[in-house]
């Protein structure tokens, strides 16, 4: 009896396989592929996934035309997934993580008729491939605005007598001590300083992009050091939830945390990838050129702020943000205006492993930055080659889309360093 049942089952399943195979022959419709490091449970990747879906919807693409591959490691798996997507007929393939870059370039060299786009990468402008492109956004503008909201909150605390002007110290939980994070916290600090001139900041790094326990511990340490407001550049809920528990105001990142932190969440900045996805999807569809190095800005909607939480934010925050945003867009405010910060240069002491601080910078008698040679061409030498200070400002994201501001400015104390 069992034997007969088995045979029947086998035949039924084989028949269904055959039927499906016949139905599954490939179609020639336009397709794009998206490669993500993690899946939607990571706020970082989810930001890309949702943006790709939204952009496709706005362009009238069907779900079946956008193939999203999640959980693709930063090794040969990335190249193989890109190849798989190219074989499926994708005309544009996008990858979302820094470590994917080399494998995307490898695939781009092999499939010259497919467009390869990569977020956060640095090599497109030196590789000079017609079908390989980098993208990032001037998120420092968003963080500057978030900093404005933080400054407003500090001023409110000073006015209420909760703290003195000297006690206006913020804490920042960072992932790694490198340009993307340094550029982020510096712009946040400068935004706050533009509102509350006496503000100082302490930064603690976790050495990971996603570690709930470490981020929570870092936030708690900063609060125990009398930081009265916390912000972060890491992807877990560790820092925001620690703030909610302690009742310390928090400026978030990647998206609103108001549901989990109704009493302490002020505002959050994030990169909105929809404009870029629309650009590359449309370009791939129409066969038009894609910029080699694309920097989304606050003006084109690539950098956005969430709604301000009026429960936690100071009164008038939303209006102030709107006002500063307009000035950023018309160019009257420059985030890295060299008049707004000072830089201390520490030459190497001669001890092994001590390379000094800000040695690529030149400053005038008032410690204002006059020149900075940044490592824009990321050739693995970690040696700068491009002058990035001009017209009284540090030109972030001008020579390539990925951030390269890595100056340690005065007023910010790094508690540790995680490379």
């Amino acid at each position: 009896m069992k034997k007969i049942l088995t045979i029947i089952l086998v035949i039924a399943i084989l028949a269904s396989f055959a039927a499906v195979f016949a139905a599954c022959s490939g179609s020639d419709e336009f397709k794009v592929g998206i490669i993500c490091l993690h899946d939607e449970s990571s706020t970082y990747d989810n930001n890309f996934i949702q943006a790709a879906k939204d952009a496709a919807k706005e362009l009238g693409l069907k779900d079946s035309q956008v193939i999203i591959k999640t959980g693709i490691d930063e090794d040969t798996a990335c190249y193989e997934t890109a190849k798989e997507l190219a074989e499926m007929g994708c005309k544009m393939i996008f990858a979302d993580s820094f470590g994917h870059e080399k494998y995307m370039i490898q695939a781009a060299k092999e499939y010259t008729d497919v467009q390869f786009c990569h977020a956060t990468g640095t090599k497109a402008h030196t590789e000079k491939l017609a079908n390989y492109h980098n993208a990032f956004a001037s998120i420092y503008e968003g963080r500057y605005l978030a900093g404005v909201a933080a400054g407003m909150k500090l001023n409110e605390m000073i006015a209420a007598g909760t703290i003195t002007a000297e006690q206006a110290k913020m804490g920042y939980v960072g992932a790694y001590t490198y340009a993307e994070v340094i550029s982020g916290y510096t712009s946040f600090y400068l935004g706050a300083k533009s509102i509350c001139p006496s503000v100082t900041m302490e930064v603690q790094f976790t050495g990971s992009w996603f570690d709930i326990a470490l981020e929570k511990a870092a936030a708690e340490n900063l609060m125990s050091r009398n930081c009265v407001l916390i912000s972060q550049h890491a992807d877990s809920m560790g820092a925001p939830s620690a703030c909610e528990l302690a009742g310390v105001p928090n400026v978030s990142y990647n998206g609103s945390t108001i549901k989990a932190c109704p009493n302490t969440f002020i505002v959050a900045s994030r990169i909105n990838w929809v404009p870029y996805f629309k650009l590359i999807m449309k370009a791939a569809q129409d066969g038009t050129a894609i910029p080699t190095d694309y920097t989304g800005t606050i003006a084109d909607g690539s950098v956005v702020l969430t709604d301000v939480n009026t429960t936690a934010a100071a009164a008038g925050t939303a209006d102030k943000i709107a006002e500063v945003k307009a000035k950023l867009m018309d160019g009257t405010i420059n985030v890295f205006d060299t008049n707004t910060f000072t830089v201390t240069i520490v030459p190497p002491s001669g001890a092994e492993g001590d390379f000094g601080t800000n040695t690529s910078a030149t400053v005038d008698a008032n410690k204002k930055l006059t020149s900075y040679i940044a490592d824009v061409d990321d050739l693995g030498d970690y040696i700068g080659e491009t002058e990035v200070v001009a017209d009284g400002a540090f030109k972030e994201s001008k020579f390539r889309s990925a951030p390269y501001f890595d100056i340690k400015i005065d007023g910010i104390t790094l508690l540790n360093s995680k490379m």
Partner: protein
Amino acid sequence: MTEQKKIREPLFRLVKRTNQSAWLPWVVRIVTVLSSFVLIGILTWIAYGVNPLNVYGYMLTGAFGTKFKIMRLLRDLAILLLFALAVTPAFKMKFWNIGAEGQVLMGAFCCMVCIFYLGGKIPNGLLLLVSLIAALLGGAIWAVIPALFKAKWNTNETLFTLMMNYVAIQIILYAIKIWAPSGTGILTPSDFGHLPKIGGDNFWFSIIVALVMTALMFTYLRYTKHGYEITVVGESENTARYIGINVKKVIIRTLIVSGIICGITGFLLVAGINHTVSSTTAGGRGFTAILVSWLAKFNPIGMIFTSLLVVFLSKGMDEVMTMNGVTNSFFSQVVTGVAFLMIIGCEFFINYKIIFRSRSEKSAVAPVQEAGAAEGSDETPALADTTPPEEAPQTPAEDVAASDDAAKEE
């Protein structure tokens, strides 16, 4: 009346099956595998409204859709198979080596050390040779440390090998921080120390190595003195000692063999496939390998098929999820887990049957005899360990003593 209550038998008991035909277990296995696929189809249909027939279609296209996908599947199968081959001799010896992950990582790490520091300075052929030797040493040392402790001080190898995994991961993370100061935790792949590509891609090398190693391991376990010693030590250490086998030596030697295979795997992962190393280079396959090995009853040829099943399910479910726009991995993991639970469960029911308490008083005697008859059969001793005989519920003390004796004899 009161007496009867005292000796009341439990609701159900497990009894070892005896005298079953050779083909019946295979029918049960095949039916189980097929019904686990049916279940996957039904669950996906319920969760995402996907026509179950399409589910199987996607699984097939995901695994075998193009020549490239077939080759990639075979390569992944080969790598998983190598992991499984590495854990097998230790497991057969009842040395619970759950450290294949760390042993492969150390092999990969040592290989990467050579490529990183010697790449471009010595000829590629020499570099590959040096990295291979380093990888073998790395894997072997990482495996032999817990073996030495086990042989010398009888430490718990399960915990020891598990902890060694974390040490290996931390060593790699530390090295990456030194090698790649850009701060993103990613080591850019090296241009040096690439294994020659056979047929233009990196697939064949791993496949060929895995095939050769499978044949060698099969021979080693079945036809050599070493293999016999492993079997004897696994069945009973006391017997092994009695017939003059140096158990400590066998443990250490076997773990060196395990470690060397892990070293080869690590070498393939770095020099043949990724050209870089990260904490996820082994990707959890050191643990999946245990499933692969065990399901195949430690038979290297059988592991080809169990690896195929694992890799097919993984690639297949990936495709099902991708093609239906699902951007999380929870569902496919749950479904894969359920499928394997069924398959493992079926092994249990092939070996044991459940006897429920019958309502009539007389029948209480019958199962006791049956269970008694089942004793002496030595199939899947590990499972038998977990279900001590229950034939004499009236005299618990005596029963425990008896089963203790049995355990010692084993």
